[in-house]
């Protein structure tokens, strides 16, 4: 067992964990942020994507100990004062969710991308979500939603 400190969705946690746990295990099992999904356990599907110190990462490919001292944002952390994040709103508005299992990962990848994006093209959006798989094949609507989210944020 080992002690680590994490800031998740703005809140500080001090945790005693088994050392072989990955970040996803701690987020899901210890902290119950079950919006973080596990689809492949090898970085192919992106369902476990979270923002770690400002960057999108696969939480299945980070050992929990490696996240010691880091700030993590999961899909649960995007709602601020009861208000949905523009990306979440746009995903609802554009029908960008089907079975929903890939949705948290896509939303986090989109959020991380939009935090740095300037007038993104569809091609850039596609590149930004290239680490996420959707098996219900809703990619076009997901790209639509991310464009829409950008418009919400810029008030255009």
């Amino acid at each position, binding site marked *: 067992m080992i002690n680590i400190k994490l800031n998740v969705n703005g809140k500080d946690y001090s945790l005693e964990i088994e050392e072989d746990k990955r970040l996803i295990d701690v987020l899901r099992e210890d902290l119950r942020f079950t919006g973080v999904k596990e689809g492949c356990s*090898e970085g192919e599907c992106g369902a476990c994507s979270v923002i770690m110190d400002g960057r999108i990462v696969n939480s299945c490919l980070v050992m929990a100990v490696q996240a010691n001292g880091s700030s993590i944002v999961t899909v649960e952390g995007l709602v601020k004062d009861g208000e949905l994040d523009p990306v979440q709103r746009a995903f609802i508005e554009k029908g960008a969710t089907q079975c929903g299992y890939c949705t948290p990962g896509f939303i986090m990848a989109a959020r991380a991308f939009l935090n740095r994006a300037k007038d993104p093209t569809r091609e850039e959006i596609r590149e930004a979500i290239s680490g996420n798989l959707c098996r219900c094949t809703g990619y076009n609507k997901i790209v639509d939603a991310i464009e829409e989210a950008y418009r919400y944020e810029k008030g255009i």
Partner: protein
Amino acid sequence: MIVKQAKSVEDALELLSHYGNCKIIAGGTDIIIQMNEKKVQPKVLIDISKVEELKKIEEDGDFIKIGSAVTYTDIIESSIFEGNLSGFKKACRLVGSPQIRNRGTIGGNIVNASPAADSVPPLIALGATIILESKNNIREVKVEDYFSHSETFGIREYEILTAIRFRKPKGVLTFAKLGLRKALAISRISIAALVELDKDNKVSFVRIASGSIGRYPMREHELEEFLQGKVFDDAVIDEAVKVLQGVMDVRLANRSSLPYKRRAVEAVLKEALGEVRK
């Protein structure tokens, strides 16, 4: 298994010499999968992902030094790899996905020694060396030799790859890759070329390295010898494709992938050499 977070290189080397059956983890994008599959089962995992001195990209006179824990994203966002070095940036941009590029490191790409490692051919073309440190020793090894003579130049149990170094080149570094899809694709073929042309458009210096055209990333000496001193035009590039195909016919003889790869290599080599002229 226990996991130790190293605070410095010294700290990591100390831990490495102290424990047996250790593995170094940096980005984790390979080793965590190997651990899941029980292909590696270290007793101690030493994390170097938060060692600041390994995360720097530095210009030192004529040289550029990249810390081993520098991520692909760090390379892509660095202003150092512009102009004649943008081929290295391109190689890093074609790795995995945003998630993988944010974690995966240059050092990890080398020590995991995949024949398809995308950052390696550009480093070989640049003539880069790697620095391998242990508690009592430092070795500097050419990236090329690391792969071609791994029994002598490969990393040892108690060593850590701390940095990659190369002299700033005069020529243009380019890179091209063929994957089965755009994202998260393991290279089927990759080629990096460093080419310098003189005022008569003749090749005055050339170094070419390939990935996935053999058991490890390697120099393409025959191709270099062919190009050296030639006028760098379409006819010569067409001829160069044939030279490389001839090399592949021998090296990949009996491989089921040969008929596909010898055809596909044409476009990849033409892209890599074509970008020299841009």
